[in-house]
Every structure is written in C-alpha cells, then in structure tokens.
C-alpha cells in the first residue's frame, strides 16, 4: 500500500480523499493556490505545498507543478478528484512516465472513454445502444449547422472533454446556434483547456441514470447499481438518488452488464461511471463514460456500504477487488443535494464570499461532505460547490423526509446557497411521486413555484420589523448627547398619542 498520496484538487473532494487516506493510515500531500491557504483541504492535510496564483490555469491545472510537488514530497501516487486534471490523458501519461501512480484509469482508457466521440465509437462496436449524433469533434460553425439540420433540432452541443455541465448547450432553433456555440466553446476552453465540441440528438423527456463500476487490473469488474440523476438545472445534476424509482431489477442487471462490458472494452481500471439516457419506454442509451470519481459517489456509498475512494486507492495499489457482484446489496435509499454558493432567488447568480456563520445538520442518516467552515471566504475562481448533503433512509419516503429535515437544519449565512431551492424540490408533489425527467426543474418545477403561495409572509415582515426597530433604537442610543440619560433624541419626533413606549 502507498505511504503517501498527493491530492491534486481542492474543496470538498480533496477533503473527501484526505479522509479516506487518513483512515487508511496514508499520509496526504495537499497542493494549494494563493487564495486557498486557509482552505479546509490544507488544514486537513499532513503536508501542503503552494503551487501558484489563484486561476486554476496557473495552479491546479499546471501538470509540471503537480508532478514537481509529488517528486519533492515523495508521494507515490496522485488522486486527481474530479474536474481539473482528473480526465486529462496528458496528465495520466506524464504520471506513467514519471513512475507516479495516478489513481484512476490508464491514459489509454482515458483517451478511449474520455473523448466522448471515441467512446461512442468503442461502445457502439461492442453493441451498446448510443444516442444518435456525431462521433468526431466539429470545428466550424458551418459544419455544426449542417449536421444539426441533418439530425434535426433540438440538438445538444457538448464539449468533447466535458463533464459537470460545463461546455454544454441545448440548441432549440437555428437562431440560437451562434451564441450557444460561442458560450459552449468558451466554457469548454476555460474548464478543460480544449474547446472542441460534438453534437447529439436531443432525446425528449429522458431520465438520466448512471451505473457506478469498479474494475481492478486483474480483469475483475463489479457494478454498484444505479444512480438516478435526472434532477438537473441547466443540464447540471443538482440532486441524485439511488435506487431510481423507474429501474426494475431486470433493467438494473441489464444496464450493469452493459456498463461492465463498456469498461472491459477500454481495459478500464478503477472507479468509473457509465451514463445512460432512459426514454419513456425505458429503453436506455449509452451517453458517455466518466473516467473518474463522480461528485455524486456518496449516494452509492450509502446504499452499498462500499467506500469507493478506498476501493480506488486499493485498486491503484494493485489489489484485487474486495467484493464480488453477488455481494453487492442496495439497502435502503440515499439522496444527495449539491449545495452551491448560488442565489436561487436571483437566477442562481454565483455568490462567492465570506461564510459568516454555519450550522451543519446532524442526527441519524445524515452525511455532510463539505469543503468549507465558518469564517472561510469562498473564492471566485473555482466551482461554486461548497458541500454535498447526503441522507440515507430505509425507503425513499424516509430519505426524502430526512433530507427535508436536514436541509431545514442547515444554516449558512454570508453567502446565498441553493439550500432553499432543495427544500422546495423536496416539497414538490411530482418529485415526491418520483415523476420527473431531466427537464423537470426548468419546465415543471419553476413554473409551479411561481404560482405557489408562501405561507409565512406575516412572520417574515414581523421579523424584519423587529430587526429594523432594534437597529434604529441602537443608532438612537449611540447618537444621544453624552450625559443624556435616555435614548430619546431621535425617537421623540415620532411621539404622539398611541405611540408605543420604549422600555
């Protein structure tokens, strides 16, 4: 087993990996940019190295710097987390060349599966059903237009190197094409240093269901069942759960088998995820494979009891999988809500800034994977994710009730977060019934929310009025001439019959 692992990431996922290492008795090496000196992943690590200025392109994305720290610190392996260098085959190759073990698949598997277009080719050859579209990146606007017309609008523009909803645009009509292409390419460039995109037919009202797999270098594979990830906003997952209400044991087995075949075709090692679209007749289409740890992996951990990060590390160290397919049991129900520093009541505007107070939910069945603490200043340079709140319940009903309870306990002030948004989703009738697809949030939920009556306006106004009253009283007291006994100066002007006394 490794004695020291470098974690080439920041935020909640770096902390998650450090926790696994610490529990395994492995020393951790953190890297940090100039704005991240106070970050939790630095505080929790055994060693920490400064790697440059705040922009990721000058720090977390610079391969030479990461490799330099690994060598200097004597780290035998690197865990890339998700995002940043996690699916960069150049980085994987460099690690292979330097004799440092990258905790993840080989550069070859990454290239095969990491390029969405090559992945589509590969799995299609293995007989896996895929969504219609291009298998090559497309460079010019003219070509995008030509192919889109051929497939028929609506189409999806997707970054070849993409993930996490970045570099992704739905194009409904020809008129939207120009600006969508610009935005997709620009986002892809800044997120993945690669602005190439491809096109897929847009399947109407699909559900997004994915299969978590594990594979070792000895050719053993298991799948850890499915995650339901249809609750998305702007094509980005925001709530995930396991199991999915639409997946029967038969479909689960079939999807699991296909996912393992896809992984085997790429000689895949480590943890990976095959994403599928499931249409209204429960046909499933391979969408892409994510060759890394997913944001939503805790959902699977809570229903299977498997620590996926520890499995990744053991696999990277050359060990055999610690469990066989028949030992994988999905018990109860788990849900994850991604807590972002965004304002759900102002068009989800990003809200970096200082966390002035924090209360984390607790009690039975609640897991909080956070990258922040009270007093931390969330920088503007990185993803807005600050925490993942995950709950387990004996069934979906208990899990939803528990999530609602936990969200209500969660207090973050100083920055706006998506916690209120999640509470509203947990109260939505369609969500409770399990009746939704990937368009649910934009097409059903938001319109329903605009119509909903809010029950506590009176309490809201009263609380504000008391706060305003106390603020005015405080200023009145502060403003009184020295030596005056009573705080009346500002107040006496409003004196008239029936005026409340000031005690």
């Amino acid at each position, binding site marked *: 087993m490794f004695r020291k692992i470098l974690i080439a990431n920041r935020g909640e996922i770096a902390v998650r990996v450090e926790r696994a290492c610490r529990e395994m008795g492995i020393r951790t090496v953190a890297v940090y940019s100039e704005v991240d000196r106070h970050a939790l992943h630095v505080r929790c690590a055994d060693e920490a190295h400064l790697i440059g200025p705040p922009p990721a392109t000058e720090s977390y994305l610079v391969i030479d710097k990461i490799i330099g720290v690994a060598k200097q610190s004597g780290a035998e392996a690197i865990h890339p987390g998700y995002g940043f260098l996690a699916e960069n085959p150049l980085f994987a190759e460099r690690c292979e060349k330097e004799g440092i073990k990258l905790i993840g698949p080989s550069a070859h598997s990454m290239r095969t599966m990491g390029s969405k277009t090559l992945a589509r080719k590969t799995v299609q050859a293995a007989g896996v059903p895929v969504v219609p579209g291009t298998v090559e990146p497309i460079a010019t606007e003219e070509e995008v237009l030509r192919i889109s017309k051929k497939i028929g609008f609506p189409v999806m523009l997707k970054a070849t190197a993409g993930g996490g909803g970045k570099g992704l645009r739905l194009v409904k009509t020809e008129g939207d094409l120009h600006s969508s292409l610009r935005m997709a390419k620009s986002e892809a460039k*800044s997120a993945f240093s690669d602005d190439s995109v491809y096109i897929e037919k847009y399947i109407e009202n699909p559900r997004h269901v994915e299969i978590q797999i594990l594979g070792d270098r000895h050719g053993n594979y298991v799948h850890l069942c499915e995650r339901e990830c249809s609750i998305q906003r702007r094509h980005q997952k925001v709530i995930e759960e396991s199991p999915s209400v639409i997946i029967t044991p038969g479909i689960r087995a079939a999807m699991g088998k296909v996912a393992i075949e896809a992984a085997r075709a790429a000689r895949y090692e480590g943890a990976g995820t095959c994403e599928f679209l499931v249409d209204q007749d429960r046909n499933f289409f391979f969408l892409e494979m994510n060759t890394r740890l997913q944001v939503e992996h805790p959902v699977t951990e809570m229903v299977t009891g498997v620590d996926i990060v520890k499995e990744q590390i053991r696999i990277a160290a050359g060990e055999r999988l610690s469990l066989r397919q028949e030992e994988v049991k999905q018990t109860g129900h788990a849900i994850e809500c991604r807590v972002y520093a965004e304002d759900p009541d102002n068009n989800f*505007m990003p809200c970096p800034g200082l966390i002035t107070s924090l209360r984390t939910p607790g009690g039975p069945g609640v897991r909080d994977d956070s990258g922040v603490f009270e007093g931390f200043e969330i920088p503007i340079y*990185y993803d*807005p994710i600050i925490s993942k709140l995950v709950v387990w319940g004996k069934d979906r009903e208990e899990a939803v009730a528990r999530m609602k309870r936990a969200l209500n306990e969660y207090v973050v002030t100083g920055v706006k977060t998506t916690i209120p948004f999640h509470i509203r989703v947990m109260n939505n009738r369609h969500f409770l019934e399990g009746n939704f697809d990937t368009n649910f949030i934009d097409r059903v939920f938001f319109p329903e929310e605009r119509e909903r009556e809010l*029950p*506590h306006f009176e309490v*809201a106004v009263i609380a*504000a009025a008391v*706060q305003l009253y106390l603020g005015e009283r405080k200023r009145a007291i502060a403003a009184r001439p020295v030596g005056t006994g009573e705080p009346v100066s500002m107040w006496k002007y409003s004196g008239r019959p029936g005026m409340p006394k000031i*005690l």
Partner: protein
Amino acid sequence: MNYIATIGEREIKVTVEEVGVARYVVTGDGKGHLVDAHQVQDSVWSILYGTNSFEVDVQRRGDEYEVLIDGDCYKFTLMNEQLKALSRAGGKAAAGKALVTSPMPGKVVKLLVAEGEEVKSDQGVIVVEAMKMENELKAAVAGKVKEIFVKEGEVVESGAKLLLVE
C-alpha cells in the same frame, strides 16, 4: 414605532412595541401579536410568534428585505413610516436603474457594447465570470451607453459599477 411594508402592490402598516427583554407586541393590519425575537446566529433569528417557533434568516439591502423561512424567500421593502412619507414626497430616483452593477464578485470577461452605443432594455451588455460560470448582465433601461467603468479581465467586487446607460 411604525413601519410600512410593501409587498408587490400591497402596503401593510406594522407597529412594533417593546414590552420586555426581547419581547415585542407587533401589530399588523389591526391585529396585535406577542413576539419573542432573539438573534441566534449572524442574520438568523429565533422567533416565537405566540408559541410557534420559527427560524428566520433576515437579509437586508437598504430598504429591501429578503427573509428566508423554511426554504421560502419573502421579498419586500420595509421603511420607517416617516421616512416613507419623505421618500414619497421626494419622488423616486428613477435614474438609478440605468447603472449596471455587478451582483457578485467576479471577473469581467467580455464587454458586449462600446461607449456611445445604443442599447435596448434587457439587452446583454457585459459578461462577468464567477466560479467558472459566465453571467450575461443586461441593461435595465434602453438608451445610450454613457460610461464604462471597467476593462475586460478586471476583477470586480460585489456591487461594483460596471457601466452607465442614459
């Protein structure tokens, strides 16, 4: 003390009377209620309204309030009755809307207009990036771009003046 809350088109008069340590009688629309209010964590208040317990996050920007209760956001303005009367007398400073400000800290990635250019109401004028998301900010009024206060690539604070439309 008397306050006027404005919720959409509706105005409600609210009277706050302090009757003990952290206890108030609050009268809204003629009804009086005993309220026990304690600030427990930064902007978070524990409110006992009668015996009903609420945890309430009160956020204020000038006269505008956003109050979170059980995941719902209540937006309204609240002013001291006298100040409200003064502001009514003075009329509204409608020109304020012509200033485009940054709603969050971030980096200016693109100016979509130049000084002197005519813009329509709701037209995108500038793109600010924060947390890897690009946000297109729009002009609130139609007019001519009078002044641009920032350059592409500049890092701006929340509330920073970006450009002025007249």
